[in-house]
């Protein structure tokens, strides 16, 4: 009888978590995978895992932190499965950022330097921020993940490297290339059009 009550209260608690945290987890999963469907599946899996492992949750962390940890593990699994595709994606993107420079690795100037400084209220423009969002979504997975972990989670570099299974100098390179891609995307989709 007592066991049944426990089980009911567990169901009740986790149902409340669904109401409180599923949107947060979904947003997070979406940004990390860039796919609505994958994010939906992952969030479902997280709550099923929460039901299964509820006894291991001892209230030492907040439920939100615990659920996010489960989600992150699932995301890592998801990436392991698709790592070949990801490497190809990285190679193509690296070739693209290399093409911004000439044979001596100096800029091929594009004359847009001034356009960047013209708009002092750039960040107050919702249209610009929309373009920014699209450009972030366009980044290759690993690069988007590194940027997201840094800005969204304010994670320390060491932790990000562990999570992405890359070295520190790799990480600097990822940030560098990601930034170059963002710059290019903003120039093509914003500064050229609004210049």
């Amino acid at each position, binding site marked *: 009888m007592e066991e049944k009550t426990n089980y009911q209260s567990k169901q009740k608690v986790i149902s409340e978590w669904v109401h409180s945290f599923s949107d947060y987890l979904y*947003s997070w999963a979406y940004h990390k995978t860039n796919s609505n469907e994958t994010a*939906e599946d992952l969030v*479902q899996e997280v709550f099923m895992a929460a039901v299964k492992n509820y006894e291991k949750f001892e209230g030492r962390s907040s439920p939100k932190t615990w659920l996010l940890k489960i989600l992150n593990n699932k995301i890592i699994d998801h990436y392991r499965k698709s790592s070949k595709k990801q490497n190809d994606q990285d190679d193509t993107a690296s070739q693209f950022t290399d093409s911004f420079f000439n044979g001596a690795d*100096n800029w091929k100037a594009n004359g847009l*330097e001034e356009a960047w400084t013209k708009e002092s209220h750039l960040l107050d423009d919702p249209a610009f921020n929309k373009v920014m969002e699209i450009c972030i979504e366009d980044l290759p997975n690993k690069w988007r993940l590194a940027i997201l972990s840094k800005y969204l989670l304010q994670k320390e570099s060491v932790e990000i490297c562990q999570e992405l299974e890359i070295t520190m100098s790799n990480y*600097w390179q990822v940030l560098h290339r990601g*930034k170059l891609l963002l*710059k290019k995307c903003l120039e093509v989709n914003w500064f050229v059009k609004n210049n």
Partner: protein
Amino acid sequence: MFLEKIMSQLLLSCKEATFLIEKKMVSPLTFTQRLRLGVHLKLCKVCSAYESQSETMNKALEKWVKEGALSKTLPSKIKSDILEKINRK
């Protein structure tokens, strides 16, 4: 062309300079790196512009994080599916 050759021999290339600009934002540079980057930025307008562009992008990223990056809503059909699965067991 001649200047470009000297730059590539003695100084950082723009690719290396922009790399150090990004590195600087997460990790300290070595003394030599700081020096070489400083010299490069004095000489290269495009990289100086890049540095401020990069800061603009940082601000835009921070803004995106604050306003809406985590404001997606899980479709209610999925939410009710999950609730049903939890309470069926």
